[in-house]
């Protein structure tokens, strides 16, 4: 049981962090805060992958003399790609937020809804 807890603790922590991030994204109305939540959500996924690649008694996957056991390079490569994708999305999102602020003068989602409805007069659509 303790063995199970020790070897699964990383994953439990990942789930808690991930869900905190997801909760921030879907419950908060401030657009910038949403993006912070989205980033927390994504970094938790990175942590999940990296945890999968850890090998007991291993070292970083750079071949060198004196080492025989290396951690798994594949999840690390995948996460390098995912980190880049994450920052691209974040930058894009901030650019849209800056434009939204210029057009609506607000970055709170519920205010944006009301502003859109005043023009559209149709609440169903959002």
């Amino acid at each position, binding site marked *: 049981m303790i063995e199970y807890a020790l070897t699964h603790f990383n994953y439990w922590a990942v789930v808690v962090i991930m869900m905190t991030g*997801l909760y921030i*994204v879907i419950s908060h109305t401030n*657009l910038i805060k*949403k993006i912070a939540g*989205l980033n927390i*959500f*994504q970094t938790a*996924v990175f942590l*999940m*992958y990296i945890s*999968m690649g850890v090998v007991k008694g291993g070292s970083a996957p750079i071949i060198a003399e004196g080492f025989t056991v290396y951690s798994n390079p*594949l*999840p690390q490569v*995948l996460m390098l*790609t*995912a980190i880049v*994708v994450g920052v*691209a*999305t974040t930058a*894009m*999102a901030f650019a*849209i*937020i800056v*434009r*939204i602020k210029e*057009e*609506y003068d607000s970055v709170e989602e519920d205010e*944006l809804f009301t502003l*859109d409805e005043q*023009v*559209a007069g*149709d609440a*169903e*659509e*959002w």
Partner: protein
Amino acid sequence: MVEQHLSILLVVIPLLAAPVTALLPNGRLPWALTQVVMLACLWISLSLLADVSSGQLIHYELGGWAPPWGIAYEVDALNALVAVIVSMIGTLVTAYSLRSVPADIPLDKQAHFYAAFLLCFLGLLGMSMTGDIFNVFVFLEISSLSTYALVSMGRNRQALTAAFQYLILGTIGATFFLIGVGLAYAATGTLNMADLAVRLVDSPHSNTVKTALGFIFVGMALKAAMFPLHQWLPRAYTYAPVMVSAFLAGTATKVAIYIMARTVFSVFSPELALSTLLNELLIVLGAIGVLYGAIQAIRQTSVKPLLAWSSLSQIGYFMIGIGLLSATGLMATMVHLFNHAIIKTSLFMAAGILLYHAGTLHIHKLAGLGRQLPWTFAAIVIAGLSLIGVPGTVGFISKWYLVLAAVEQQAWWIVGVILLGSLLAIVYVWKIVETLYFQPAQAAGISAQSRVELSPALIVPVWLLAIACIYFGLDTDMTVGAAQVAVQSLGLTP
């Protein structure tokens, strides 16, 4: 020498063209390059489809590394058909954009706009060609990021909030997909789709594998705008520039549905879907989506949201087709992928002509416009009839196969839902047709404020697709034939 590299060139040619396009001076030149690239891709994808239609598979090892160590492209009739859909719609939309983009996009942004369009196009092609599940994620993000930028270029400020909402939901979807891929990797140690399928059969159905399927499924369902994860779609399609709506309606959700079918049928097994009740979920949510989308479409007072909600209703049919987990059901889904792409793109492009002519898309302000624009109106009628599923049009073919698949499993209530969905489609199509043709033109005289002269660049692509609606409704060899080969290559017997 070139033949063996065709599958990779399909993705690399637009990939090389996109950075070049971004550097070109604004004006006609970026358009011309985009059009040439699209035509080349159309030719490549058609010749790929011709190659694989006989049942052979094209296998291409990127970097010379054999899978599962390297990334491989695996082309069978299923993805060749999807590639044909994407490149065909891309070609016609680019032709349309010769007149559409100058009307929607400021001149100083056109080169970047075309570059983003090419990036979106290559992302969708990359997703459909690859045989590696992580590679799907990378190209999914290329197409998604460019889509957010393209949607935000709409002329109303609502385009920005629509793009932001799409970005949030799209990124959540992609991250769910990534979680699913990670769990599948933890259970098998591989990322290659064919290898995954082999190793998943060996491994007993563990919690990890079931959860992996669930997360990949939810991620793609968000991208495909499956009910009840559809919130982003109506706004994104409504407020995006016309050519972007036309392109996305024909391609983006189709590719997501292809990935879903691919994961359910050839990566994980249909039996796993059965044991997790995924099929029941697909059918029930699909049926609700068909009716809900159609009812919302009827309630709309503007053309673009009406078409967007109708797309949502059609997505329900794809879900039902996959959920039936049978050869006929999958065939119906594939034929409908092709058919709905033709129908919806032609309708959005025709709506664009109405917008450029009248300056608005409020239905009640379009009264009598059909008599001023007889060609556009006729195309709308043909595509509308296909949407309903009248015999002699493409829409009939796909609904026919879907009904067959439902009857096979004695699921009579699904037949009822399909018929009811078609009846509701009659209502919303009639709503447009009636205003356009049978209502008296407004006294103000819309033609006075027309913004863009009708040009061949706008009407010819619309009519090519309208003719395709009839042609592929009568001659079903290509679509149904390809679907049959695809279904066989997935190991199902029709």
